[in-house]
Structures are given as structure tokens and as C-alpha cells.
């Protein structure tokens, strides 16, 4: 019994004190910045004082004695008997680390650990001693000001001050104690927080959440049942049950919500230590600290965020010298911003450092074998930046012990995706880098649309649902068109790739006499696609339950839930479905790296390049192909819409002026220009749209093609056989250069 109690007390001590030490750290940092308030030292003192007291009671001598040394210094500081020195804060942080380490090993095995604190104790004592002789303090301060703080001070302050003022005995601890004790009580009482909050075990909250989940299910069941009976009293009661359950659910969810500052509170310390170590100056700004997230998600994003912050300081921000040479303020800005947006939490990590050099990333990727030299120019900036998330990629010039070991960003991405989030990098080279992390609010209960497919129900999370389209009886044949074998649907003028859920899940095919077709327009990683299902039920709040280990390999399901009738329904993982169907292969920014790696692999194996191509005709019958990845859209314009600007043909497109490039003319081929419509492939050239005018769009193909390089024709990479026909593989970037529209496009970019 006694040992149980002891264990429990130690557990409480560790939990409380680690929290207290975090607070201690942030107060130390406030002190260092000169932002300390009247309570700063009181708070620090209180944390240490209660740690000392409790550990004393529990017979933890080592913790108690170390706590005691620091307490002395704090009480002297508090009374103004010693002034804070530049190195005081560093020593105090070392002190809190040492205490934390002992608490940590205490939590692990109930022992205080074998850490050696002699140097730390000497430093703390030295700082306390300064108060005893004002002259010595001045001398010592002068002596230490210029010393690098990270070096283990070769001469502790105590001998120095003793040497300067020989009469002062080196035992000031005794006399300093009694007055300190007198004030302790006052401080503890005044700072006592009123008991409006209690500590609850996290496991307790989790099981409460599970129970609420069960209640939600039971409620759904009763609602269905009551709906059938149409008994007024029962309906009334179920209505009330419904409202109460919803409120209960909201409230329980709220208890699990924690502000993101719980994670962020560690960052000032990390930023400080890291920037000192690297000789950088960093101003950390945190916006939206109060943004709340589910506890499980907070836990899950802690490490990825820490990594991104370290990364920003290590790789992003420059040293003061470099910064001022570049005309920037010496102090770098690191801004964390969190905000809610449509059921998601967005976290942005911005640094105004050197940004990401596209060329360097490309270079590195080629060097690491992730990318082929001739592919580089065809990649959009986004795709290039996505390479940073590829496993084994690191652009750091030198490997430091902070980051740049080549593990990291890929793990960050994996961990964030694991909880249904996404990461995205944007960079303004030379100016800034922004990493945007998007994560769901909660994982436990989500709104979902229940759909029907081959006789089973499936839940689709609302978060990825954009809209619903109903193709009515008999319309399907006309509304759904095919590009080769891939179905597409014209959604407000642009082609939406379609997937059949039956096909994706390898269920039996639908009967030919299709009635209405329901299309779920879904979004995964910024790309939309349509999912054809048999029927649509209702929107419901579902409780997400994980699938067993034996179903781990199934990326198309995010879990399962229990429906109102007690049966199990699977939850579709929209991202998984999209990946399975390769929807994201071309435009998916995060897939770029993987896709490129695959291209590289297939290069080696088959002597060809795995590509998706857009085939079109220009002048005569011979088809030409360009990579589909840079094709933004296919458009048609009336010939009369083509205007002249700066001697170039342009059209007005989405509120911008888009230059047109007649592919046939550049390649000196005849083209049938008598048409009344101009067919245009909107090609994205480094973020600028350029309209490639073609005669006819033929098809898109996906496969491995070997290209035979032939005569030197500007704009043509070579020829290959696609769908049994000799096809010219065009290099759109070279075409654009050859045509001269690039100047125009460049001008457009600057405007």
C-alpha cells in the first residue's frame, strides 16, 4: 500500500513539475528579453520551491539538493540582492534541464539518475555569491560579458570574486536563507490559483469519448426506430435525446480540445537554443496560439512541427552577416500562424530567410538520382519543392546535428498524412519560405455522407466532399464521355476525371440498364475527381473506429463505423482511393517526387520513360505529344476572340492576357488555320499560362515510351511510337523559347 502511494505521489510530482518547469523556462526567456513582469521571478521561485518541498517529502535527496541551490539564487534575484547577469539566464535554463532530466529518469524507473551536476552547482553558487559583494559583482560581470556562454566556463565566478575581495567569506548561502524563507509563504499564498480546474487523467477522457461515441450510435438507432413508429411521445423523447446527445458530444469534444500553444510553448526555448548555437538572430512570432485541436492530433503534430521549426532556423534563416549583406534586418523572422478554416486547422511556418533555390533542389535531385536532367525544366515550382519531401533528400550544404541528415521532411510528411493532413511548401527565393500544414480538427467523430455501392454502405468524410452531381435516368450515356477508356464528365466546362467505386473496390459490375448515376465530386491534395456510386443515403455524424492490424494494407479505407442499424460500414479514404486510381499522378504535388522516382526507375529498367502524354495533331496527320503534367486545361476560343498585343496573338483568358503560340508555325508545318474555332492547350510555363494552338486534340496516353532523338529540330525532343503511330515528342519549353512569346509571358508575370 505504502509503495503504491509513493509511486502515485512520484507520478504526480513528475507530471506537475515538468509542467512547472516549462513555465519556468518561458519566464526565464521573458527575463532574458527584458520583458519580465512583477510576477516573473515569483513564478519561477514558486515552481522550484514546490518541487524542492515535494521531493524532500518523498526522500528524493538529489533533486531536493539541486533544487535548493537554484532556489537560493532565485530568492536573491527576487529580493534584488543580485542582479541578473547575461549568463544568469543560460545557467537557469541548464538548471531546469538538469531538474527535468532527473524527473525524467524518476518517471522511468523511480530513480533520480546518476547525472553529475557539480559544474552547474558551482555556476549557480557563483551567481548567488555575486550578491554578497557589489564590487565583486561589477568585476565579475565585466569579466564574463564577452565570454562565449556555451563554453564550459573555465573559471567559475566564485574563485574570481573571492580573489578580488579576499575578506568576503565564500559561504553566503547561510545568511541568505532566513529572509528568503520569510517571503516564501507570502509568495505561495498570493500566487495560489483558485480551484476552478482539476486534473483529469487523459485515459479517463478517452474512455469518456468512447462512451459518447457509443451513445451517438445508440441515438442514431433510436432515431431510425422512432421515425418508423410515428408515436408522438416517443418522437418528443427522442428529439430531446437527440439534442442532449449532440450537446454532450460537443462538450466532451471540447474537454479534449487543447490550444496549439501547448505545443508551441516549447518553441521559444528551442528557437533560442538553436539560434545561439548557429549564431543566428531570430524573432519568433506566434499568432493564433489559442487555436484548438483535439488532444490526439496535438500529440501527433508535436514532432513534425518541431522538426519544421528547427528546419526553418537551420536551413531557412541566414546568419546576421549574410542578412545585412542582402539588405535585410539582421534579426530573422520566424512566424507561426494557426487558424481554423472549414473544419481544418491550418498551421503556417514562415521564415524570411533565403528561401528555396529551385536550381539547387533540381541539382540535388539529379545528383541523388531522383530526377533526370531533361525532366527538370518541365517541372513546375511546386513539383520541384515537393521533391524536398522525397525520402533521402537534403539540400543542406553541410550536415549539421540539427537537421539535414536526409531524414526528416519525408517523415514529417508521412506523420502528417497519417492523421489525414497535408503539407505544402511555397517559397519566394531570396525572401521567404512558407510551409503550410493542414490538419483535421478531430479524428474521433466526423460528419460523413453515407453512400451505397453494390449493396453495401460506405461513409465518405464530408471534409473531402466538394459537391454532388446527379445524372438522371438515361442521361448517363450522354453525360459521361470517354478519353480512351477513362470516363470524364464536363463539370462547368472543364473535364473531371471519373472513377467508378465498383471498379476501384473490384466489386461486380453494375447491370447495363443503369438508372441514375450519382457523382461525388471529391478533393484530394488539391485535385478534384468524380466518384460514381449507386446511391446516396444521408449525412451522418459517424464515430471513426480503426480497422484491425490484419487490414493494415488497405489504403482505400480510413476505418469503419457502426451504423444506426448496428451494421458496420467502411469509411472511404478519399486520398487512398485517388492514389489507387492514380488520379494524382500528374497534378498531385506531393506525388511528384514519387512519380519522378518511378520515372527514373523505369528509365533504367526499360530504356524508356514512363509518362503521361497529351496527343494532338498539328498540320496533317502526324500526331505530336507533350507531357500532360504541365497542361493546365484544354480550351476552345472563337477565332474572333484572338487579339493582337505587342505583335503577338493573345486571348483574354480568366481575366488575364494569355499569349498564343502556333505550334504548327514554330515547327514550320502547315496547319489548317481556316477554322472558326481555335483549339488551345493551356500550358503552364513556370507559372505563366501560354496557349499552344493545335489543330485537334487526340488523346491522352500513359505509359513507357522510348524516344529516338533525331535531327536537330528546335522544340522537338525526338520521335517515338505511341499507339502504333510515330509521334513527335515536343519540348514545350524549347518551343516557347524558340517562338519568342516568352518575353511577353515574362512581362505578364511581372505585372
Amino acid at each position, binding site marked *: 500500500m505504502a509503495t503504491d502511494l509513493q509511486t502515485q505521489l512520484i507520478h504526480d510530482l513528475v507530471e506537475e513539475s515538468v509542467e512547472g518547469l516549462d513555465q519556468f523556462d518561458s519566464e526565464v526567456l521573458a527575463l532574458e528579453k527584458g520583458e519580465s513582469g512583477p510576477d516573473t521571478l515569483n513564478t519561477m521561485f514558486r515552481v522550484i520551491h514546490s518541487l524542492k518541498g515535494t521531493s524532500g517529502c518523498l526522500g528524493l535527496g538529489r533533486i531536493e539538493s539541486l533544487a535548493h541551490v537554484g532556489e537560493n539564487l532565485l530568492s536573491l534575484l527576487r529580493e534584488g540582492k543580485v542582479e541578473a547577469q547575461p549568463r544568469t539566464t543560460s545557467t537557469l535554463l541548464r538548471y531546469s534541464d538538469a531538474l527535468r532530466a532527473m524527473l525524467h529518469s524518476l518517471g522511468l524507473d523511480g530513480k533520480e539518475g546518476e547525472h553529475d551536476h557539480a559544474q552547474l552547482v558551482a555556476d549557480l553558487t557563483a551567481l548567488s555569491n555575486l550578491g554578497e559583494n557589489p564590487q565583486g559583482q561589477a568585476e565579475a560581470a565585466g569579466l564574463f560579458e564577452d565570454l562565449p556562454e556555451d563554453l564550459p566556463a573555465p573559471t567559475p565566478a566564485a574563485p574570481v570574486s573571492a580573489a578580488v575581495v579576499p575578506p568576503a567569506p565564500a559561504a553566503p548561502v547561510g545568511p541568505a536563507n532566513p529572509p528568503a524563507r520569510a517571503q516564501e509563504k507570502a509568495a505561495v499564498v498570493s500566487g495560489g490559483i483558485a480551484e476552478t480546474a482539476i486534473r483529469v487523467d487523459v485515459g479517463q477522457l478517452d474512455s469518456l469519448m468512447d462512451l459518447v*461515441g*457509443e451513445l451517438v*450510435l445508440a441515438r442514431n438507432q433510436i432515431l431510425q426506430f422512432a421515425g418508423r413508429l410515428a408515436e408522438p411521445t416517443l418522437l418528443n423523447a427522442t428529439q430531446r435525446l437527440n439534442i442532449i446527445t449532440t450537446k454532450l458530444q460537443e462538450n466532451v469534444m471540447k474537454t479534449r480540445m487543447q490550444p496549439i500553444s501547448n505545443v508551441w510553448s516549447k518553441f521559444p526555448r528551442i528557437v533560442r537554443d538553436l539560434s545561439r548555437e548557429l549564431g543566428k538572430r531570430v524573432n519568433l512570432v506566434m499568432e493564433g496560439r489559442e487555436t484548438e485541436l483535439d488532444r490526439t492530433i496535438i500529440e501527433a503534430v508535436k514532432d513534425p512541427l518541431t522538426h519544421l521549426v528547427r528546419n526553418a532556423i537551420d536551413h531557412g534563416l541566414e546568419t546576421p552577416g549574410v542578412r545585412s549583406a542582402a539588405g535585410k534586418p539582421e534579426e530573422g523572422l520566424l512566424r507561426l500562424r494557426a487558424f481554423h478554416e472549414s473544419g481544418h486547422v491550418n498551421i503556417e511556418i514562415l521564415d524570411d530567410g533565403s528561401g528555396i533555390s529551385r536550381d539547387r533542389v533540381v541539382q540535388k535531385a539529379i545528383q541523388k538520382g531522383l530526377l533526370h536532367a531533361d525532366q527538370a525544366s518541365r517541372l513546375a515550382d511546386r513539383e520541384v519543392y515537393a521533391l524536398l519531401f522525397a525520402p533521402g533528400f537534403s539540400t543542406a550544404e553541410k550536415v549539421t546535428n540539427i537537421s539535414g541528415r536526409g531524414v526528416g521532411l519525408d517523415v514529417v510528411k508521412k506523420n502528417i498524412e497519417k492523421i489525414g493532413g497535408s503539407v505544402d511548401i511555397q517559397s519566394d527565393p531570396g525572401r521567404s519560405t512558407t510551409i503550410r500544414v493542414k490538419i483535421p480538427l478531430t479524428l474521433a467523430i466526423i460528419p460523413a455522407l453515407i453512400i451505397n455501392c453494390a449493396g*453495401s454502405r460506405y461513409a465518405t468524410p464530408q471534409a473531402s466532399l466538394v459537391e454532388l452531381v446527379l445524372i438522371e435516368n438515361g442521361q448517363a450515356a450522354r453525360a459521361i464521355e470517354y478519353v480512351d477508356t477513362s470516363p470524364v464528365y464536363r463539370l462547368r466546362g472543364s473535364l473531371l476525371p471519373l472513377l467508378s467505386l465498383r471498379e476501384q*473496390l*473490384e*466489386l*461486380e459490375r453494375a447491370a447495363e440498364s443503369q438508372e441514375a448515376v450519382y457523382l461525388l465530386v471529391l478533393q484530394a491534395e488539391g485535385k478534384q475527381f468524380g466518384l460514381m456510386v449507386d446511391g446516396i443515403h444521408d449525412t451522418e455524424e459517424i464515430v471513426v*473506429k*480503426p*480497422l*484491425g*492490424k*490484419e*487490414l*493494415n*494494407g*488497405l489504403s*482505400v*479505407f480510413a476505418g*469503419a463505423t*457502426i451504423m444506426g442499424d*448496428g*451494421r*458496420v*460500414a*467502411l469509411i472511404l479514404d478519399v486520398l487512398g482511393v485517388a492514389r489507387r486510381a492514380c488520379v494524382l499522378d500528374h497534378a498531385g504535388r506531393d506525388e511528384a517526387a514519387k512519380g519522378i522516382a518511378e520515372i527514373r526507375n523505369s528509365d533504367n529498367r526499360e530504356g524508356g520513360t514512363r509518362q503521361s502524354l497529351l496527343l494532338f495533331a498539328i498540320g496533317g496527320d502526324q500526331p505530336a505529344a507533350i507531357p500532360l503534367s504541365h497542361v493546365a486545361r484544354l480550351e476552345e476560343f472563337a477565332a474572333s476572340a484572338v487579339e493582337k498585343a505587342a505583335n503577338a496573338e493573345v486571348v483574354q483568358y480568366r481575366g488575364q492576357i494569355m499569349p498564343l503560340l502556333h505550334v504548327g508555325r514554330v515547327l514550320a508545318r502547315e496547319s489548317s488555320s481556316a477554322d472558326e474555332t481555335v483549339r488551345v492547350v493551356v500550358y503552364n510555363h513556370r507559372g505563366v499560362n501560354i496557349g499552344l494552338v493545335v489543330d485537334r486534340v487526340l488523346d491522352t496516353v500513359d505509359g513507357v515510351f522510348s524516344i529516338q532523338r533525331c535531327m536537330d529540330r528546335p522544340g522537338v525532343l525526338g520521335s517515338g511510337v505511341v499507339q502504333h503511330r510515330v509521334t513527335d515528342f515536343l519540348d514545350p519549353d524549347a518551343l516557347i523559347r524558340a517562338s519568342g512569346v516568352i518575353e511577353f509571358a515574362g512581362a505578364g508575370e511581372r505585372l
Partner: protein
Amino acid sequence: MSQPKQFCTFYLGAALFGVEVTRVQEVIRYQEMTEVPLAPAVVRGLINLRGSIVSCIDLRRRFGMGPAPEGVLASNVVTQTAGGLVSLQVDRIGDVVEVTEESQEAPPDTLRGAARKLIGHVYKLNGSLLRSLNVEGVLDFESSTRGSSPQN
């Protein structure tokens, strides 16, 4: 000397199998099930066990046996594993049998195929043999064995 062990027994065809009673949470009769498309064929589906979702493993398929004869309404032995609860679908439930270590033997070396990984020990009972099931082995299947049409 030796501790007697209790086994919850069940039949696949005529063969008697057992799982240690301490690992069995409960035995349930025929249960409505939700099939999981794309899942390995041995995963029969998901069942709702009072609010938890439990995967159901078809032991016949796991052993590579043919489907159960007509009229057999399968039962489920809900078993605790390292990865949580798993339900094992069997033909028929038997008694709880107590065995001693003296009656225990290693499976014969001639045991081949899937069964090698699935049978832990053999216990000699009066008139029959009890095969103790290696539950971890049951769950250690290649996830690539996808059943595109697991149902007939």
C-alpha cells in the same frame, strides 16, 4: 507437477482445434458481417461486437480448406491477440477441454503447407487429437492474397 490447461475447442470439418480458454473472450453464433472489398480473402468481414469493430478470419480459408458443407451456420470464437480482438470463424463449437502437459506433443515434422505455421502443439485425447491453434500464425498472412470475389 504440470499445470493442466483448458482449451476452448471447435471443429473445422471433423478436425478438433483449440484455443486456450484464457485467450477467448466469448463465443458467438452466426453474426451479420460487412465484407471488406480488396481485403485478403481470409478476412471474411467486419462484425459489430457491442460497439467495437472486430475482423473476422475465416479459418477454413486460412487452412486452405474448401468451403463448409451446406447447412453449416458458422460460429465465431472471439480471441484476444496482440493487435486487439479478432474473431475466428469455425464450423462448430466443441466443449472446453482440459489437457495436461504429458499429453502434449510437437506437431509431426511431416506437417506441410499452411498448417505448419498454424498448429502449435498436438494433445492426445481419448479417441481424438486436439490441435492447439497458433493465433499469431493465423494472423500472419500475406496481405497480398487479395480475394477479388471472396463470396460465391
